């Protein structure tokens, strides 16, 4: 056993496909993006918070929500990170192109964070608190998924 060469095996690049439901609230959100190029949030009558994307429940209040709130296409950067380390993108099985900027954006009129990418990878040109606007796909090219929002751009 002493001089045994230690082997490993590779799984291969077999994908594991899924088809996830988006649900009523998320589907409505993507429709709003397609038809009006703006964000949609939902208000909890219990705590008054507006969250985006809209969802069925307020977790802390445990109550069902139905008060959709039309928001604009702008927000502010609450945090960002220029990601520069390599990793496998589970969506593609390939390395995700880097650098790219991961951003936490508070959509104007909402109380939580919307995560997306910001089209600025020069750290010196980006700051917390900057105003950003969503850049969308052309309505005819929209597919009803998160990539319908191409990225957020800084309003300078």
């Amino acid at each position, binding site marked *: 056993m002493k001089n045994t060469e230690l082997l490993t095996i590779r799984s291969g690049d077999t994908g594991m496909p899924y088809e996830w439901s988006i649900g009523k609230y998320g589907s409505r959100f993507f429709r709003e993006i397609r038809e009006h190029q703006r964000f949609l949030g939902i208000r909890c009558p219990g705590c008054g918070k507006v969250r985006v994307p809209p*969802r069925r429940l307020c977790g802390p209040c445990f109550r069902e929500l139905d008060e959709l709130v039309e928001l604009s296409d702008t927000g502010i950067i609450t945090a960002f990170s220029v990601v520069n380390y390599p990793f496998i993108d589970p969506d593609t099985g390939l390395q995700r192109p880097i650098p*790219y900027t991961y951003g*936490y954006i508070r959509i104007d009129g909402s109380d939580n964070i919307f995560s997306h990418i910001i089209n600025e990878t020069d*750290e010196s040109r980006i700051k917390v608190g900057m105003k950003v606007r969503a850049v969308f796909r052309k309505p005819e090219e929209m597919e009803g998924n998160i990539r319908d929002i191409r990225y957020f751009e800084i309003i300078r």
Partner: protein
Amino acid sequence: MARRVAIVGTGQTHHKSHRLDVNGREMIHEAVTRALEDCELTINDVDAIVIGNMDHFESINCVDTWSVEGSGGVMKPILKVSTGGTTGTSVAIAAYYHVASGLFDRVLAIGWEKNSESDTTGAIITCSDPIWDRFSYSGAIPSLATEASAYMKQYGATQKDAARVAVRDRTHALNNPYAQMYNRPISIEDVMESAMLAYPIKLLDVCPRSDGACAVVFAAEEIAGKISPRPAWFKSCAARHTTTWFGDVDYDTGLLSLQRAAREAFDKAGIRSPADDLDVAELYLPYSYAGLKWIEALGFCGPGEGPRFIWDGNTDMGGKIPMNPSGGVISTNCIGATALLRVAEAALQVMGKGGKRQVPDVKNALATGFGGCWWSDVVVLSKDRPS
């Protein structure tokens, strides 16, 4: 009424970045064997097993049934508990309830991970919501960076303060031959000069990825004393998996889940002043900044006082409340085992089996778990049998 429960034995592997010499089952078996040897039991004495890890790190579905030849679960009751980073504490808490319920007398808790078998970040990304977050998410580091920046802005904490935490844990790892970073001390300068991953987090501020396993034996009150002359009594536990959506986390406040879990667990255990009433803490701190901010959530010091508390040496060996005598998560992170290692190390301290990393006269010890969507678990162990 719940039965009282104690930890009577622990075992862990010598953690490494790559364990090519064993497969997962064999690695689990190492930890199980060591835990059983520690309390001089055989697998025949074990009534039930709880096991946990995170599925996509090794891509094994139904780890409970896959593992039985390594865990000792052939023709035994076994179930799997898995909650992300908190898996290890979730497994410990489940083992506690196996015994407390009166259904089982001796229960084996196992946490393990072979992080070398996949792209850790790629696997972690799949924890994000596939509809909303996955396309932009880049793993744990940027969200931790967000928390760190907010904390620094709020209280004026510095990168050096965080580096002090990393240095503490890596220094403590000098005493722990099981740690992946055993005998690899670092200085504050080393941390400051290490590569920036996502501002303000640098390479030496974060945990490594490890291959390793941990096993802990729980026993009922009637037999715990017979198995071990000085068992570690399971005094209390609490879990808060507060948020479902990454976007709902409020980075400007303390770690809400840890505040709430700690409050409940401390209340149940009669811990009024954590810094005075606890003698040692094994905390799931996946990055250095957590060692500043999260100790505030636990009530060791007030908001914003973390850096001062650390620099004053309170958390070093010999300090008021030594933290992570094992070297902590910054020295070893086999994710599904990590939080169970905190419980095992806290138990070692109570049982007086800490060897070179023993804190003298430990009566009460704290272990925590962290993971998921900013979730926390808290476990309090004690030398004294709960009343």
